[in-house]
């Protein structure tokens, strides 16, 4: 059994060392909020944080993640979806099908941590996740809303 620290808890699992972190999260640990989209780090649906760094978990062998590195998935981003991004996402009705949105929110959360007031160019550079429904403009608006503290109560 190997161990990972996910959303603040140590989690044991049984998987081959080369298994991508994505599939350990989804299949061994039951955290299906992180999505499989392409398997080659192109689409960003699998984005999680490892020690705060946005990481495409579909190409990250689980054996390369240390037991003490802090993995955060969409389920652990904030209690009761209280992150300013999540509240802004709801306020602006960002998601359509929603499948890419976990990865979008995780990428955006890492962006805001690095750059609390991102410019459009910052957003373009950080947000390379694919959305086929086409929510990009609302994603951008929601990031800006969150940077301003989230929706007004």
């Amino acid at each position, binding site marked *: 059994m190997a161990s990972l620290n996910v959303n603040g808890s140590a989690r044991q699992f049984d*998987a*081959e060392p080369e*298994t*991508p972190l994505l*599939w350990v999260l*989804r*299949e*061994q640990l*039951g*955290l*299906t*909020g*992180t*999505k*499989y*989209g*392409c*398997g*080659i780090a*192109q*689409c960003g*649906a699998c984005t999680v944080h490892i020690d705060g760094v946005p990481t495409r978990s579909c190409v990250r062998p689980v054996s390369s993640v240390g037991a003490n590195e802090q993995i955060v*998935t*969409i*389920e652990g*981003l904030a209690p*009761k*979806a209280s992150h300013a991004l*999540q509240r802004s*996402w*709801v306020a602006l*009705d*960002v*998601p*359509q*099908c*929603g*499948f*890419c*949105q*976990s990865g979008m*929110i995780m990428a955006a959360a890492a962006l805001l941590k690095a750059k609390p007031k991102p410019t459009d160019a910052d*957003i*373009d*550079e950080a*947000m*390379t*996740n*694919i*959305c*086929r*429904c*086409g*929510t*990009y*403009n*609302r*994603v*951008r608006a929601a990031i800006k809303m969150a940077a301003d503290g989230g929706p007004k109560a």
Partner: protein
Amino acid sequence: MESTAASFTDLPPLAELDTALPAEPATVAAPASRGRAASVARRRFLQGAALGGSLVVAFNVPFVRRASAQAMGGGAAAPAAGSAAAGTHPDEMNCWVVVNPDESVIIRVARSEMGQGTLTGLAQLVAEELDCDWARVSTEYPTPGQNLARNRIWGSFSTGGSRGVRESHEYVRKGGATARMMLVQAAADEWKVPAAECSVAKGVITHKPSGRTTTYGKVCEAAAKLTPPTDVALKDPKDWTIAGKRLQRLDTAGKVDGSQVYGMDLKLPGMLNAAIKACPVFGGKVKRYDAAAIGSRPGVKKVVPVGDYAVAVVADTWWRAKTALDAMPLEWDFGPNAAVSSASIAATLKAGLDAPEAIVGNQAGDARQAIGAAARKVEAVYSYPYQNHATMEVMNATARWTPERCEVWAPTQNGEAALAATAEAAGLPTAKCDVHKVNLGGGFGRRGQHDWLGQAVTIAKQMPGTPVKLIWSREEDMTHGRYHPITQCKLTAGLDTDGNVTGLHMRISGQSIVAGLFPQNLQNGKDPVVFQGLNAGGAEGAFGYAVPNLLIDHAMRNPHVPPGFWRGVNLNHNAIYIESFIDEVAQASGQDPLALRRKLLVKSPKHLAVLNAVAERAGWDKPAPPGVGRGLAQIMGFGSYVAACAEVSVADDGSLKIHRIVAATDPGHVVNPQQVEAQVEGSFAYGLSAALFGACTVKDGRIEQDNFSTYPALLMAQMPKVETVVMPSGGFWGGVGEPTIAVAAPAVLNAIFAATGKRIRDLPLKDHSLKKA
């Protein structure tokens, strides 16, 4: 229902096309070969009966088990395996509305939510007529098995062709109105007053003369015992307070915290996972594979054939199944199509451009004669490639088969077609099958066909009693799509000396979706879908331009690559062809593209209105900023009128920047303006992805692109600002999920021409250099 009636004559609704429910073996001894035609007729009758007559409005009566249609929304509970078909309990009535004693309201939605907002929109329509408290509304999907068992009381489940609202608005609203009348009647009966003296708002019923009040929850049990009224009037849309408003979606919460369960996320007790590979060449077969070679890999349970064309590995986890499959020695018989290439397909289509035989879609006067006699001729040839839907969630389905029953959990756009596919693959009558709809991670038409679902059932059938979830790899998804059909188009116009178009011939050569999917639905050899936006009239796209001598025809050429419905589908390339060509005519005759369109749209006021709206908003009468080119496009399709104006610039290195899109939509009625705006914005992302990058090419009989690395999608940095003008003119119901896609590409292509003088006639744009010569 005007729109439904019209669409039946214009184009068989998708429900008719792709729900090939076999006749029930238990009751009708119909040979399988006539099942399809018979079932279409039968379902048409049932639909008519369900829609025209009494709508059963169900109320939750205590001690009667309510239908366990899968709950929608955040944290949707995983449905229980093997549960009996709900909604068939003899005491239960079940249709659009459930009112509970605790004042909560459940609205049933038959169409599938896949991001387009139909779940919220349809619930708004029901709630509007019900006059309930919107804050207490939740929704449920009935299953197709329940629908079948109850004579299709919910009508069609088909979710395609932008039909969700436009084809069910009337009967779902009647469901809400009927429920309201019964609830009010129950209160009036209790008070012994005429119902006409009562009013209702937000689920509170008031007897106006006495001021007494009660609530829906208090009278629901009494109301459920009443006979539903037959004379049901609907509100005038101008009186709407829930429908027509910018309400938030009902299904957002679970999409921001990872809790929404998509098909791929489903987990059932004892479930195994399967990965599959089908022959990369369509029409090829499995030659041999060595299951023993992977038998000792961790977690592997079984290797199973799927038909003669595919093989699947079943393991405890999907990753183990997938990697074992990749490691398994596997040989293919590529079959008769192994030499087909994009070049050979293009040559076949090119020959169709001048073929003497073609199927006429729209004709007036004598176009050939007029063009021959014209003072001037303009001609251009265009082409449009195969494209994959590339839903973010790859194809997947979960199935559990026993000799007595087969159940499937699937993200499907058409529950009834999914049920038919389940029954066929299961070898069981439909009454012994059911399909539970699980949330869709995108659809775009791909999930209206169920090849993947049939595979899941075929695999599960080889492991009786064990639920098996089949997930395609992205590579499998990209190379085994049901592709946007491939076409070429030659347009020829004859002009008089004043630049008036005296004759126009539009020859489309290429693939027919209907011929590929349901050849029995061809109309004397004609595929009506081919002529979306080009028809003489009707909801599926009336050609707006008044040309005295017109010929639009189709030389059908069907390569072996399987086609499918695709968001916007034929309207997309038809709009590129005609709207680019109109600009070419304007250019050739020295006319302003807007002025020429206005002249040609003289008999099409709704087409003209959306065109004028975008021209005005974009400031067409003022010069574009330096270096910026503007382009226009308009078309009608899926019952709606759309237009766009694009502003682009091209840098010296050839890189394209789309600065701004102004888009106008007239869908007749708008159920939720902010969702319409979301659909219009999204349409530009989808349409521009297609125009800029979307091409699936064929080599050695197979699709070459296998992931987003070779089939890119538009990204955030490339997404233009979209200004949406929603301008409902009333009197009709059009769709909004698709029509705007069609104007995205031609508006941009025309803007590129304005900016650079380069006319792009072959898509996608990535294959062309825009660099200044």
